[in-house]
């Protein structure tokens, strides 16, 4: 366990003993850590109307980004085709190569490092539109790194610091979300941001972090736990009516249970001397109920059938016919609900929020041609619809809501016959009005075979040339993370100034100054 977790642990221990007599005698250094922590909860907001959200779109399984962004210049495409073409028969399962003519051409405003021309998978028309409009960018060959690594270092030095369990779904997905490759605990950078920024929210009942895909590391902080919603809304206690004072209008069994439920809670809080844990449990339970009721009422005011959500219906080819939430791709259902929560931000009194959406199926070892295009289409068109909806809700929202992808790893450049296997580095997407869009950041990797590919360690697994720390920090900085907290949250950034990386430093430049 590293210094950082150690410090967190000590901080937590300090928090836990803050009331004890021993606390005031703690060594000055630790007391300083404590004051840094409390200092971090100062208000960071910059005005009454200011709202900021990050939306993590997690692609479980490891996205084959090498079929998402493809070279379209002659030599780059030839390399790509050689790796991916299989038996070369159009439509054959072994032929993973997208025909050159079908690629959606990108014309970035600044030539990518190392040159070359690139295109998108033909199903990603939404992404293409956003990219062209400067509202989306590609970040090339990002991955987990403890220290920058070259192929020579990787091959010749068995002691080099590498992320633990490379190519393993569970470990790499955790490392992407922490985002430190040598972290062993399960707090994520979104959770740590919320530990700091939750103080900006007037509403201190609802968690700053809302997950549409259950538990995740990204949103788990030291003090913040994500609140789970589902694509239908919130979970509420089903056995009883919502326990307001009257327990609902209808005198049925759920109302009677609710009245007794309330009576038992009131008993615990009114008993003298009573038990502090029982009172605390009542406070927590009421808070849980209140949160659910609050969110439920708020989003009910913005039903999916409202006109503003029209971009999810038909316009982007996501579903036939309006208002059929269940027929939408999973990622679209989640983004639609996130849009409903964002639309409710005023009522909910939230100025800072972090959302987590996720969709699976990207582990395309087999049948990649059948499965992967739909996944890319769902991603591209859903995000496009999401931003169209935000524009309808409030034209300034797109500038304040940034979405980004994360995934376990990139996949192998090489072809296993009808799919691709677990890789390491991969390309990622950032979306929103605050993105310096229409650009590719970092260096698009060579797609030559292993022997002649400077980044390919074996079988088409690419050493990342940008680290997850850099990627996450660029977003966190836009979100408002201050220099003083930078290395606490991203300690390995210190090592990411190395020219081994395609863009050294802590800011990759894809976000506009906040």
């Amino acid at each position: 366990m590293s210094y950082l977790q150690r410090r967190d642990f000590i901080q937590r221990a300090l928090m836990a003993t803050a009331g004890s007599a021993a606390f005031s005698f703690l060594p000055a250094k630790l007391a300083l850590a404590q004051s840094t922590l409390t200092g971090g909860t100062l208000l960071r907001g910059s005005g009454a109307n200011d709202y900021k959200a990050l939306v993590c779109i997690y692609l479980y399984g490891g996205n084959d980004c090498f079929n998402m962004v493809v070279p379209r210049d002659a030599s780059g495409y030839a390399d790509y085709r050689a790796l991916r073409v299989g038996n070369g028969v159009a439509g054959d399962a072994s032929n993973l190569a997208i025909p050159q003519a079908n690629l959606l051409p990108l014309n970035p405003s600044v030539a990518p490092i190392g040159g070359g021309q690139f295109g998108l998978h033909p199903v990603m028309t939404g992404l293409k539109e956003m990219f062209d409009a400067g509202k989306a960018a590609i970040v090339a060959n990002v991955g987990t790194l403890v220290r920058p690594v070259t192929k020579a270092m990787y091959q010749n030095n068995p002691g080099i610091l590498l992320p633990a369990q490379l190519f393993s779904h569970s470990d790499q997905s955790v490392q992407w979300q922490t985002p430190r490759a040598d972290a062993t605990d399960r707090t994520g950078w979104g959770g740590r941001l919320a530990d700091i920024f939750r103080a900006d929210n007037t509403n201190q009942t609802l968690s700053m972090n809302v997950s549409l895909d259950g538990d995740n590391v990204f949103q788990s902080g030291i003090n913040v736990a994500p609140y789970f919603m589902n694509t239908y809304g919130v979970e509420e206690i089903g056995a009883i009516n919502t326990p307001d004072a009257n327990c609902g209008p209808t005198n049925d069994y759920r109302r009677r249970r609710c009245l007794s439920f309330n009576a038992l809670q009131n008993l615990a809080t009114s008993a003298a001397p009573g038990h502090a844990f029982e009172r605390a449990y009542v406070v927590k339970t009421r808070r849980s109920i209140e949160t659910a009721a609050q969110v439920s009422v708020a989003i009910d005011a913005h039903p999916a059938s409202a006109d503003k959500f029209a971009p999810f219906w038909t316009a982007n080819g996501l579903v036939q016919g309006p208002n059929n939430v269940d027929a939408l791709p999973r990622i679209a259902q989640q983004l639609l609900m996130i849009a409903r929560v964002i639309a409710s931000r005023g009522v909910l009194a939230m100025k800072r929020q972090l959302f987590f959406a996720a969709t699976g199926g990207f582990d395309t070892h087999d049948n990649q041609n059948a499965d992967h295009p739909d996944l890319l289409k769902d991603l591209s068109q859903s995000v496009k619809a999401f931003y169209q909806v935000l524009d309808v809700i409030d034209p300034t929202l797109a500038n304040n809501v940034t979405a980004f992808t994360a995934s376990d790893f990139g996949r192998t450049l090489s072809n296993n016959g009808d799919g691709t296997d677990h890789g390491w580095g991969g390309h990622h997407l950032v979306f929103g009005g605050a993105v310096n869009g229409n650009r590719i950041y970092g260096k698009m990797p060579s797609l030559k075979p292993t022997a002649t590919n400077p980044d390919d360690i074996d079988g088409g697994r690419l050493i990342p040339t940008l680290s997850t720390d850099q990627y996450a920090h660029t977003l966190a900085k836009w979100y408002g993370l201050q220099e003083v907290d930078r290395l606490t949250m991203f300690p390995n950034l210190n090592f990411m100034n190395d020219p081994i990386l395609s863009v050294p430093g802590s800011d990759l430049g894809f976000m506009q100054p906040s």
Partner: protein
Amino acid sequence: MSFLTKSFLKLSALTAIFALNCAPAWAEIPIDQIFKASMDEPVEGPYTPQEASRFLQQATFGAKLSEIENLGRIGYNAWFDAQFAATRTEHTPYLDGLINAAIAAGQEVRVFQGERTEGWFRNALFANNDQLRQRMAFALSQIFVISDQNGAIEGNPTAIAHYYDKLSENAFGNYRTLLGDVTLHPTMGRYLSMHMNRKPDAALNIRPDENYAREIMQLFSIGLVQLNVDGTTVLAGTPPMPVPTYSQETIRGFAHVFTGWNYSTCRPPESATSFQWYWDYCDTKSPSVIGEQDYRLHAGWREPMKPWGEGSAFGERFHSALLGPLPNAAKQLLVYPGAVPANGVLPSGGTSRSNLNVALDNVANHPNVAPFISRLLIQRFVTSNPSAAYISRVATVFNTAPRGNLRNVVKAILMDTEARRPTALHPGKVREPLLRLTQLYRAFDANSRDSNNNFITSGIGRIFEYPNYWMAQAPVSAPTVFNFYLPNYKLPGETTTLNLFSPEFQITTDTFITRIHNEFEGRVFWQFRGNTNLPPITDWNPMLLDLTRDTAVSANAANLVARLDLLMMGGKMSAGMKSILVSHVNSMPVATENDRRSRVQDALWLVMNSPEYVVEK
């Protein structure tokens, strides 16, 4: 107190039970069996069924009426003796059975962490002979943490089950033996990266991994600061300050000691420079054999790790025998009065094994161990906030020869006056969610829907529970080595003002509170034997409660509530709560069997989600 008085108390209690008519099973016991040969036994109690039940909630995975009766008959001492003598229930053989059956049938082996969890539930729910040992193993699994949330071991359910079985094997044994078994178990080796930890190599800029060195001290033995025997912090100097138990130099020392270990089945290095990382090389026979044996059955995951190449020409190649951070290549271990080696300095030399043993003795004999481990165990069994005197009493038992005897420790914890007759203003703890579930299942004799013991067939007869999803807790599945919650967690608010620790509140979050209410709704109102509205068994074979016993008493609301008080709350239900529940039940119809069952269900759900129940006192 005279024997006569005690007999009187016991007689009064039983009379009360008969009068209430709320425990017909108890009432059916012939009077001479309850009182045995002598009216004066058992002198140590329990004196009432409520006391027996309350004890069983602390010491087992939940009280059953039959177990309450048994304990009432034999008394605490005989109960402990029986538990200590009982044959140990393991969980690896169950998984091995599933694997071997699948192999024999030529089927794909589908044994993953879900099956391991199922094995855990089977032991917790159905193994009545060694409940205390199983409960102790569960407590130890929250101190000596490994977890299936870790990628290095998540793929191997049998290895994790085997680790758990090691905990249960040592549950009544010696602390030092336990520490050794934990340290060398391959799952711990992988989880905290002592496995394949190697000596320093300046040329390659490699230093030994400090992960296990740190956690064994911080979490498994002594903690961060020096403690008095009563668990209070030693303060020294001017102004008085806590005294750290170890420094970075100590961590470096232990990190150097914990080098050179690999799976027991790995072949020795073939040359002075060979570097065989791979599992393929780690078989007792040849590299190819592993390919033919299911990895979940592999010996390398079950035998203690071994110094890589021990006894061979290139044995000890990876151990820091001659390299240490101190002058003369020595290694700093813990320093305390009477510490061995002298001044905690381990001289250069030795072997992986000899140095490891010296280092583990050095840790295990530290004076912090008794109060530190005693407090953690008390928190798992009895209360989040034991008094200093309570910790001191248990720690003293820990320190009494044979030192570190966990059997004596667990009995001291459970029989302490603070466990049996708490007088603190805020005693007890928030019930662990997993224990709420096992308690429910045990109290209502739950079994899988088909009630068959043929647990091999496709999903039928299996207990499928995914408790992580709804209660943020599952066996051997903590998010980090810091367990599900920290022993020193304090919930902000009144509890912090009162300076109370409340670990379990750390996982009592908005989402999980609601989910727990809803999942108990499903189990109480839906998953009961005789429910004719369940989908086909081939689609769903859940655990079902048996509500018939209490349906039979529910026409009388007071009797039903007394029953629930006995079974779920050990007689700690307040008069106010009883009154609310009795009124509730009396407001419900009573004419039909369904009506009477609904009364049980409503009352049970209200109890299971009530503040008085959630806080076990």
